[in-house]
């Protein structure tokens, strides 16, 4: 207990004496943790978005012109029993024509003048998000194509797969950046603690010569590192919350239609706490690294 009180008072004293260097260490730590937090935030939002988009992946079953209700029921059964489908909507031929006219007003008149509606009825199928990229979706499409009453199945996953690969690459790059930043933060903190150690070398030598316990000698330095890391993490967290609160609405407004307000959410509590704890851990490692030399 005495050693703890001693370590706290010494660590505080040391940080205050070297406020400039300490501030710098805190800033570096908070910079890297902020970037980490931002990446986590962007990453979770992106995967939420992607999930939604995946779910909206185009999976349409076009019916043959003379599809009977029995055939339609069989199709619906196939979809339902596949276990891949979250929902399906029947789009009658008239609705398809209406959509087409809206999308291509130039052609609306021409198509309307046709003797019959050239567009087929279809099912718009919503896949279950977590299975949208499953290979079994491809098999389902193939199965449906063989079925009576189906003229075509359109299932385009190229776009989603590209997005997924982009997000994957961004995640890898982000993780590399975070690793570099974490290392930098750890080493910066170790540097400041080493500075403190250097400045108090005489003191340490004397502590050793009067028989002070190792915990007394190293404790303050490890604690100093931990406190620096923790402070950095708290600062980073604060800035992250600020950026989130200020940035959320503009982003949602900017990407109106693409991004829903629900897609941009703050980090879950567990992750946020790990971020702060991680900062303290980084600082602690830095402190230990530096204190190692004090024997």
């Amino acid at each position, binding site marked *: 207990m*005495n050693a703890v009180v*001693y370590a706290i008072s010494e660590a505080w004293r040391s940080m205050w*004496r070297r406020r400039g260097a300490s501030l710098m260490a805190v800033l570096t730590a908070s910079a890297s943790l902020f970037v980490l937090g931002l990446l986590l935030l962007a990453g979770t939002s992106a995967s939420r978005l992607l999930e939604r988009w995946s779910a909206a992946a185009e999976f349409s079953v076009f019916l043959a012109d003379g599809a009977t209700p029995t055939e339609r029921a069989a199709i619906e059964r196939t979809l339902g029993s596949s276990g891949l489908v979250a929902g399906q909507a029947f789009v009658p031929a008239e609705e398809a024509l209406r959509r087409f006219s809206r999308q291509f007003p130039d052609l609306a008149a021409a198509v309307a003048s046709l003797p019959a509606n050239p567009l087929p009825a279809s099912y718009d199928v919503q896949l279950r998000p977590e299975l949208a990229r499953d290979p079994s979706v491809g098999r389902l499409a193939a199965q449906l194509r063989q079925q009576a009453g189906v003229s075509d199945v359109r299932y385009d996953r190229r776009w989603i797969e590209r997005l997924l690969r982009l997000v994957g690459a961004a995640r890898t790059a982000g993780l590399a950046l975070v690793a570099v930043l974490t290392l930098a933060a750890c080493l910066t903190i170790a540097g400041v603690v080493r500075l403190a150690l250097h*400045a*108090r070398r*005489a*003191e340490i*030598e*004397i*502590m050793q*010569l*009067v*028989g*002070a*316990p*190792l915990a*007394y000698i190293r404790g303050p330095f490890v604690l100093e590192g931990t406190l620096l890391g923790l402070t950095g993490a708290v600062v980073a967290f604060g800035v992250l919350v600020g950026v989130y609160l200020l940035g959320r609405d503009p982003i949602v407004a900017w990407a109106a239609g693409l991004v829903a307000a629900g897609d941009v959410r703050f980090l879950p509590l567990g992750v946020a706490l790990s971020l702060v704890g991680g900062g303290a851990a980084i600082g602690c490692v830095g402190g230990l690294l530096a204190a190692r030399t004090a024997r």
Partner: protein
Amino acid sequence: MYTRGVYALRDLTLTIGKGDFVFLTGPSGAGKSTLLRLLLRQDVPSAGHLIVGGRSLSKMSASQVQTYRRSVGFVFQDFKLIPTRTVYENITFVPRVLGQPVAVQRRKAFQVLKWVGLQHRLNAFPEELSGGEQQRVAVARALINDPALVLADEPTGNLDPDLALEIMNLFRDINARGTTVLVATHDRELIRRVGKQTVTLEHGLLVEDA
């Protein structure tokens, strides 16, 4: 207390009894400081044994060394005061590390500071002190913890003859209370005036034991 060591240059066998007051003398570079450092286990002899209180210094574990050092009062030739701490903090450093109550620390600090005549410089930093004042702080620090063994390396080199004699009398008083005292010094005049057992070293060799 029994000491047998090969160090610095030559070998030496020397026995100092518990409660003795011994002067260690000899020309510059004779090995006085080395012997004292060995006795604090600041260095370990490359060959030979040092046995203090029945325990071999070279065979002690790190934590035993810590415990042993707490029972020794050492006056370093270069003082080794902590520059960032006041006189009071420097002196109470050991009791503080040992977790003694603040009231006891304070009482003891005032007592030893009075012994060395520095009660008025309590809150000065080492660099604000004269060389002799720093040396006296170093002496005070060595004595605060009622050590069983006092090792003093040239504790009066920066003091005028009168003050030097006062410090020696202080060591004599402490010795009278049962503490073993070993003082390295060049000051033959001082040794003559104190009149205690003297060990003379030269080039790491024991040349005289009187």
